Structure formats: C-alpha cells, structure tokens
C-alpha cells in the first residue's frame, strides 16, 4: 500500500502543479486579452459594498435632516 501511496503523492502533486501552472498561463492570456479587448475601468475594491442601499438611505436622511436644520438656523 505504501508504494501506492507514493505513486499517489507523485501523481497528486504533479496534477496540482500542472493544474495551477496551466491556470497561471490561462490567467496571463486572459488578462492580456481582457485588457486589450475590454479596457474597462479597473475596480480596486472587489466586493460590491454590502450596505450601499442602506448608505443611500442614510445619506438621503442626513441630507434632509441637515437641510431642515439649516432652514431652522436661517429662521433664527
């Protein structure tokens, strides 16, 4: 069984390296293709902000509140 394990180790690490090496090549090809064909704006932050919807609400509410606040200040 030990020999089978050793064989497995070589096959396994071989495939893992082969797979990821091919992925490296594929990514390089893909990235250069994409950059040439679709030169869209790069996004530095990747995850779409979860709370964007909430933030909009907050911002709207604050704007409204500040507006009211300013109006009151003017009245004074």
């Amino acid at each position, binding site marked *: *069984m030990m020999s089978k394990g050793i064989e497995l180790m070589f096959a396994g690490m071989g495939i893992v390296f082969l797979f990821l090496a091919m992925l490296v090549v594929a990514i390089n090809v893909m990235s250069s293709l994409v950059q040439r064909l679709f030169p869209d704006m790069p996004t530095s932050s990747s995850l779409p902000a979860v709370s964007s919807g909430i933030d909009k609400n907050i911002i709207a509410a604050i704007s409204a509140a500040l507006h009211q606040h300013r109006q009151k200040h003017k009245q004074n």
Partner: protein
Amino acid sequence: MENLVSLWQSTGLYNFTGGQAFMMLVGFLLLFLAIKKGFEPLLLLPIGFGAILSNIPVAGIAEEGGILYYLYFGIKTGIFPLLIFMGVGAMTDFGPMLANPKTLLLGAAAQFGIFASLLGALALNAVPGLEFSLKDAAAIGIIGGADGPTAIYVASKLAPDLLGAIAVAAYSYMALVPLIQPPIMRALTTEDERKIEMQQMRPVSRTEKIVFPLMLLLLSILLLPSATPLIGMFALGNLMNACGVVDRLSQTAQNELINIVTIFLGLAVGSKLSAHAFLQIETLGILALGAVAFAIGTASGVIMAKIMNKFSDTPINPLIGAAGVSAVPMAARVANKLGLESNPHNFLLMHAMGPNVAGVIGSAVAAGVLLSLVK
C-alpha cells in the same frame, strides 16, 4: 413507585457509559476552545454542541427519529459542504491573485502537506493497532488542505467514520495557524528575506474577475471532473459576486444561507463524534498527522516562495509562501504580521491573499485527485 423506578432507569445518570461521558467532555472542550479561545467558533461551537447532543444516553438525538440524524443527510449527500463552499466563493476576492498569477504556484506547493500526511498515515500502519486503509489515509491527508468544507466533503465520501475527528482536526489546526506557522516560517527564512518588500499590485478589472471563475471551472472540467462539484459551487458563488447583476443572490449566499447551513453542518459533524468512532487510537494518529500536514504544507509553501524569489524578476517575500496552505484569511494575516516584525513598512497582507486563495483552489484540486484515484 413503579413510575419512580422507571424514571430513575430513564435518567442519564443511570444509563451513562464511560465513552459517552468522555465524548461529552470533548464536546465541552470544543465549546471552551470556541468561546474562550476563539478557535473557529462559527464551526467548533456547533460541532461541540452536536457532540454533546449526540452522546446523550437514551435521548437518541443522532439516531433515527432524532434531529441530528436528519441533519446528517445534508453531509451524506454533499449538499452542506458544497453550499458552504458556494458561500465562501461569494466571499472570495481573486483580485490579488489575478494581479500576480504566479503566486498560484505557492498554493500548489503548500498542498504537499496533504500527500505527505497521506503517506504518514500509511506509514503509521506499522504501529500495531492502527489500521488505515488508503481511503482513510486520503481523508486524513486532506486535513493538510486547511480548508473545512473540502475536508468534510472528501471525508464524507472516503471515510465517513473518521469524519468527526477529521473535521475537528481541520478546524482546530486552522485556528492554530497563528501558533503553528510562525516558528516554521522563521526557521526557513533569513531576516533579510523577511524584510523583502513587494511591488504594488496592478488593479484588476471587473471583466477579469468575471471571466476567472468560468475559466477555473472550464479547466477543472477538462482536466479533473472529479473536482468539479467543489470547484463548480465555489466558482458559482464567486461568479455571482463578481458579475454584479445578481447581488441579492450573492448576498444571501454569503450571509443567511451560509449561516443556516453552518449551524446544520456543525451539528451534523458533531453527531459523528460518537464514542464508538472517536475513542480509537486512530484519532490520536489523525490529530498527530493533521499537525504534521499543516507544518509540511507551511514549509513547502515557504520553500517554494524562496525558489521563486530566486528566479523571479520582481522580488517575492518567502513569508507569503506560508499562506499557500489556505486557512483564509488567517494564514495571510500571519504572513503580514511576521513581515511587519522584520520591516515595519512592509505590508504583505494583499500579497499573501494571492497564495491564500490559490491554496483553496489547490486543495480542491488535490481533493479531486484523491476522489478520482482512491477507490
């Protein structure tokens, strides 16, 4: 009176076996580690609780008719680990890896821990009383992948009896990454190497992030179909997040859905922590081999990074090689911390995230190899 006797005979006190009591202590220990020590609490708390519930005498919570029995179907069918993997995919940002794709090789090298501990398990058969089949050895080796859902998925297919011990070992060692890795990383690197600063990464476009999961899936389909359940669900989650047009699905996958499945998965894993299955000398072997796997994986990653640094145009700090084991994001944080120790201006976190997420792919690929070759 009869009632009282029958009641006494139905108490836990009357029916306890030593094994059950011991496994319950193991469950409480896991809760302690989760709550007080902060060891991967999201998983170890439900696992520990499941261990307690499944070892209660008379109640039969893990037997037919009990809730843990039914929850276990989610593991048996592979649904729970795959859904968690989908959620993890949705939480994963491949940006740093795509900006510097050669770090993928670090994620490959660190998988050596898997195969080394597989060999180790087979070697332990020389110890009288220990008897690991090739399937057992493969399931134990996958602990070295440092990836919970992958370990549970593989163990449930190859060695369901060892599932409890393997899951506990995998999550415990992942929590111990900040203790296990630093000495190995220090031993294998010089101060000067640890000081190496890396170049700032290029920004990665949204299109690249959308194409990548599909490319990853395609490669896996062509070369290693046995890895496609894992890689496929991971790629699905990642695509849902990257594409930006199904945000509500992506958010649910990485929040409510993964939370629900995590509770169920943890309890179901805990239900495999029965005295019968866990209180075997094999368990000690598993725990020892798991530590070996993490150590060897860390070392292979660091050594690979040193080799790559020799031949690369741009400098590579060998510390980021250790992040190749996966254990996202702790391993990357460890690399960052050690880098800062040697050079207070050296922020390696983003550079280490590349090999870190590459390690997830690497262990899914290794899992595919094991599932396809070990029969």
